[in-house]
């Protein structure tokens, strides 16, 4: 029997789709890193908090759009509060201290979101609210014009990739072409100098954290649709880590490409390498190994900014 090509392509596509999901988390990460040089560990709990807020509201009979709107508002308020009470006093501090502060934030948020809501596992079916055919989870046939290739691809995944894609286009434009984008890049290079030239750090950061909150909401909803809303969402952050490191911490397109690489690599590894390695669950570390291999050849990731050092 020959090699099962259709199966391979199916695996590849599946990988691409889970890659998109990783990228969605990764974008939020990159946004914070790019605008302040901070490695935001709280991204996972932001996801949890956002989607939990949304789900609890819909469960209490609030309709989809209102709930979405309120949840987005809550995330914006949260983002502004983070800037006011955490980032502002810590501006210009050691990046490791800032990283640790985000870990503290993650701990707080984990407790907070489960305290005001609950720690149950919630299901989320978006097509219950949205009568979009696009969200129909039933697989469809793509590449139908090639009759001998029957490949299953859920519509939902296409929808998720569309969302991720448009987010990236918007953000890339924002960073490269607008004045605020430019000032954000400046802030991530040097907080002090940015303050000295008159960039209002506080406003800028408040915007970034608010936007990150909204991205977390979007990503959280899409993840929740796949895996349900529970504290396991926090672990999405550990999945996104190798993704952003491969793509480069500062690159938004890198987050997408990294996500796809990891998604595909993980699936291929699991299927074709898993047995040879004598045990299941190699996806636990496989992504990290791939990232490691990448970084050894390109220490700044695929699209990351070069390290510039003067002595």
């Amino acid at each position: 029997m020959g090699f099962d090509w259709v199966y391979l392509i199916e695996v590849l596509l599946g990988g691409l789709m889970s890659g998109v999901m990783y990228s969605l988390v990764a974008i939020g990460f990159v946004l914070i890193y790019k605008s302040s040089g901070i490695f935001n560990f709280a991204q996972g709990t932001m996801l949890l908090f956002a989607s939990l807020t949304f789900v609890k509201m819909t469960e209490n009979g609030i309709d989809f759009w209102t709930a979405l709107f309120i949840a987005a508002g809550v995330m914006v308020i949260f983002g502004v509060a983070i800037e006011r009470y955490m980032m502002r006093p810590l501006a210009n501090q050691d990046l490791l201290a800032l990283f640790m502060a985000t870990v503290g934030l993650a701990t707080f948020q984990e407790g907070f979101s489960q305290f005001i809501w609950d720690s149950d596992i919630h299901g989320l079916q978006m097509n219950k609210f949205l009568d979009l055919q696009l969200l129909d989870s039933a697989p469809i046939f793509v590449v139908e014009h090639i009759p001998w290739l029957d490949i299953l691809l859920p519509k939902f995944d296409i929808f998720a990739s569309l969302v991720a894609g448009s987010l990236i286009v918007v953000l890339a434009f924002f960073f490269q072409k607008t004045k605020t984008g430019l000032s954000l890049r400046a802030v991530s290079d040097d907080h002090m100098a940015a303050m000295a030239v008159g960039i209002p750090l506080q406003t800028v950061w408040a915007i970034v954290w608010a936007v990150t909150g909204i991205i977390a909401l979007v990503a959280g909803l899409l993840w929740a649709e796949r895996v349900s809303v529970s504290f396991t969402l926090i672990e999405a952050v550990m999945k996104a880590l190798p993704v952003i490191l491969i793509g480069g911490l500062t690159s938004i397109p890198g987050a997408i490409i990294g996500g796809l690489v990891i998604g595909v690599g993980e699936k291929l590894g699991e299927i074709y390498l898993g047995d040879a390695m004598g045990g299941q669950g190699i996806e636990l570390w496989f992504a990290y190994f791939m990232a490691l291999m990448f970084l050894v050849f390109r220490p700044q990731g695929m699209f990351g900014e070069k390290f510039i050092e003067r002595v």
Partner: protein
Amino acid sequence: MIYRETGNFVTDYMRDREIFPMKFDKIMVVLGLLFLYLYVPTTSEYMLSAHVIPILAVGLAVVGLNILTGITGQLSLGSAGFMCVGAFGTFNLMLRLPEWLMSLPVALMISGIFAGLVGVIFGLPAIRIKGFYLLVSTLAAQYFVWWFFNSFTYFINYEASGVVAVPPKMYDYWGIGNFLGIDMQGYSPRYILALTIVIGLTYFAKNLLRSTTGRNFMSVRDRDIAASVMGISVPKTKLLAFFISCFYCGVAGGMYSFLYIGNVDLMIYEVDRSFTILFMLIIGGLGSISGSWLGAIFVYEFPILFTWVGDVIFGGAFNTAVVENVSNMVYGVFIIALLIREPGGFAALWATTKQKLRMWPYPH
């Protein structure tokens, strides 16, 4: 004023380089050792088993991480993985080798070396990768090690449950128990062993920082390019730091499993524990050995204290989930507040206080 920093005169270089230059310090060290060796073992079993021994074990891992992250500047989230290597290494050494050859203290040290070697392997990418990017290497170590011991059940002697209790005879090393007529599995002898290892290794770490090797570590942290220009081999220094740090973590892991819990269990070495250890380090203060211990004590005791206080005030009016969530919230806020107040952690707080006391009664 009993404690005075002035009036310490030395007449030769050996005395100038002493680790405790002041007479007062020397007295305090001797008193402290007497306290730790003579008084603490006689406190309650609960005190030793639930507070002292776990802090000793975890604190040692923090000191190890400090050597890597605080002193050499290589960020690591793999500490629990290296502890895991230490725990399983100790278990397998004790299990596979004949009794006359292997004893617990020796096994702990050797498995520490194993962990160190694993650390060197995962430290290799550090030659090329810097900063936050290095997280990927240490996390790979963490996940790989965990998966490895999870998949190859040979290492836990094919125990189906994944948890092996440590056989009592493993505690009896060198026939001391027989000789003195003590039950070596009791917490006091365990504590004495843990304490001896910890004091030895902390002393070693403290001295390491004052040596050429320690200064090389620090120069690599502060500016690796400048260090290489000064003739320091950066790759060698980084790998050495990985080895020493992971050695500490390995020993700490062995201690945690053997001296504290009493069984070898993979579940306690998940990535969360790596985070906890990094937490302890940063709260304590990067680069300071005493800070590491302060951080370890604080982070370990905080949830216990919080639950206790909650119990006293509310008397169990809330269920455990609520208590845990609130504890998480308070803890998170506290960490952020501490970092805002003093990004350098307890060690910097202590240094500032000392400075203030020197100036006293003037404000500055």
